[in-house]
């Protein structure tokens, strides 16, 4: 079966003046469409760096990233923007909502960059907000919501354009156990709907649900597949 994501000996170095900080030291990875992948590892091991590369927000120092049989490094900037817009949904630990927009507007944002008309945008945004159980909060600002609710808005925003891949970098890191479990439930649900999910987590329980767990240590994958 054709792999959705192929990562080939990727490295990433950050240059800080004269010092170069290695963040990824040669990562190989294959992810099939529909996979539920958990990435684990200690702080500073390169999890976020890897996620940024997967999300086409950052470029590796060396190595290849092939997405949907296309070399990401060969893509033009606008193509990358289109991929971020349509193929990938990103969920962050800190939610990253726009504070001065209400939650419906926040969720409309990716559709705006897709060039969708206002009516359709509103319909789509309301639909996904309904799916995450927030249809009664459309006009609220993010600051008026709890952490769990904010993360649900962020998920709604990530899925509103129906991307194949959902990337979540410690989505429950800022949440208490109960709301964290709610959020994880949503990811399971999305997985069962066919989304490919890649989630960075410290939670063993999450890892147990995953098809595959990738352990990162010092920018390297430390073990193979766990079924």
């Amino acid at each position, binding site marked *: 079966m054709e792999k959705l994501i192929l990562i080939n000996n990727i490295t990433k170095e950050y240059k800080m003046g004269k010092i170069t900080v290695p963040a990824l030291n040669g990562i190989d990875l294959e992810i099939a469409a529909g996979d539920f992948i958990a990435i684990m590892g200690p702080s500073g091991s390169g999890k976020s760096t890897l996620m*940024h590369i997967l*999300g086409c*927000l*950052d470029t590796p120092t060396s190595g290849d990233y092939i997405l949907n049989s296309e070399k990401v490094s060969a893509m033009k*900037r*606008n193509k990358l*923007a*289109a991929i*971020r*817009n*349509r193929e990938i949904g*990103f969920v*962050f630990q800190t939610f*990253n*909502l*726009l504070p*001065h927009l209400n939650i419906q507007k926040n969720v409309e*944002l*990716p559709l*705006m*960059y*897709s*060039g969708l008309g206002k009516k359709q945008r509103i319909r789509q945004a309301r639909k996904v907000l309904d799916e995450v159980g927030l249809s009664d909060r459309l006009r609220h600002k993010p600051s008026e919501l709890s952490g769990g609710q904010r993360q649900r808005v962020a998920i709604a*925003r990530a899925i509103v*354009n129906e991307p194949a891949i959902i990337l979540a970098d410690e989505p429950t890191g800022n949440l208490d156990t109960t709301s964290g479990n709610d959020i994880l439930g949503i990811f399971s649900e999305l997985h069962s709907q066919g989304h490919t999910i890649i989630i960075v987590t410290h939670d063993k329980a999450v890892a147990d649900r995953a098809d595959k767990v990738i352990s990162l240590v010092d920018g390297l994958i430390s073990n193979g597949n766990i079924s």
Partner: protein
Amino acid sequence: MAISLKENISIGFSDFWSRKIRSIVTITGIILGTMSIIVVLSLVNGINQQTLKWMMERGGLTKITVSRNWEYQSETDQKNYFTLKEFYLIRSLLPEAAYFTARISRNFETTYADNRFRSSVSGVLPDFKYIEDWDVSEGRFLSEFDLKNSTDVICIGSKVKEELFGNKQAVGQFITVADKRLRVIGVMEHRYMKGGNIGNENALSYMNRWCYIPLSTMINKIRNQDEIYSISLKSHTVEEASLLREKLEAIILNLRRNEPVFNIESAKEEAAQMEENAARFQLIFFLISAISLFVGGIVIMNIMLATIQERTREIGIRITVGARRRDIFLQFLVQTVVVTSLGGVLGIVFGLSILNLVGKYLDIQLIANGMMIGVALLVSAGVGLIFGISPAIKASKLNPVEALRYE
């Protein structure tokens, strides 16, 4: 794909409102700049229109006047006046002129019974009333018969009438001027220029103190000499005025051996000159406004740069969900233009609302028009467009990962 302009403008507005105080501070320079554009353009326009109105009041654009050139000092002894013969010669050489008059003026005390009034009495031709566009309000003006026969008649200004006769009938009465008894045959229309008050005196009120008698009466019975220092004429149309002036000048130079003893001025050419001067004046003030707008633009650019710094994270988020460089660039450029245009609109509104105040202070009516409003709007939007570019480029080039890490 991408965000439409309309959408960008609405983002620009909501950004503006969510940062009201800063936005207002940001656009102060633009407000002042556009305000000064409106005020200065209206002022120059007002002055222009006032001068034009003045010219219309004084006979219109077809009028040509000959008067002594006070800067000319004769080395040869060219006469600085015309004799009556010369005047008629000049007139006969310019049959295309519509109206012609010579004028000899002198100050005299006019008396009626016990009332006295010092007036300027002019000997003129009947054409005078057409040249000045000024008729009598009672009685009649001087006629060809009066001129031919040097009749002892006089037309008096409204002020002269008021001072000598009060409310009594003036036409038909005799007044004394330089020991001569003259019959009042007409009272001139009262002259008053709307909006033309200088202090508490109207710009035209001096005319109401004048009196008119036939030129022949002045020459033969009062002055006993025919030194004519001033000639006025009119062409049939405004288009003909320049040519008529040129011909007149050639004739007069010929009479005075090419010495510039006289000034020959055409109202039309003066109006053109005046408009040219006003345009120059306007340009200078426009440059001053431009400097204040430039400073305003620099201020806005810096505030936008600071705003973008503050909104780094937002930019990172927008890039994450699919914004292209162009989208970010346009978002901030449009926002800057929205901000400066709003400043422009406020500047225009404030500018228009203080026009009357400034006008009262300077005692000149300031007249705005749509063109000025358009210019002010374009200029304010243009400032945003120019000074918004560099912040917008900076925003569009942010690295998304670093932008997302920004606290």
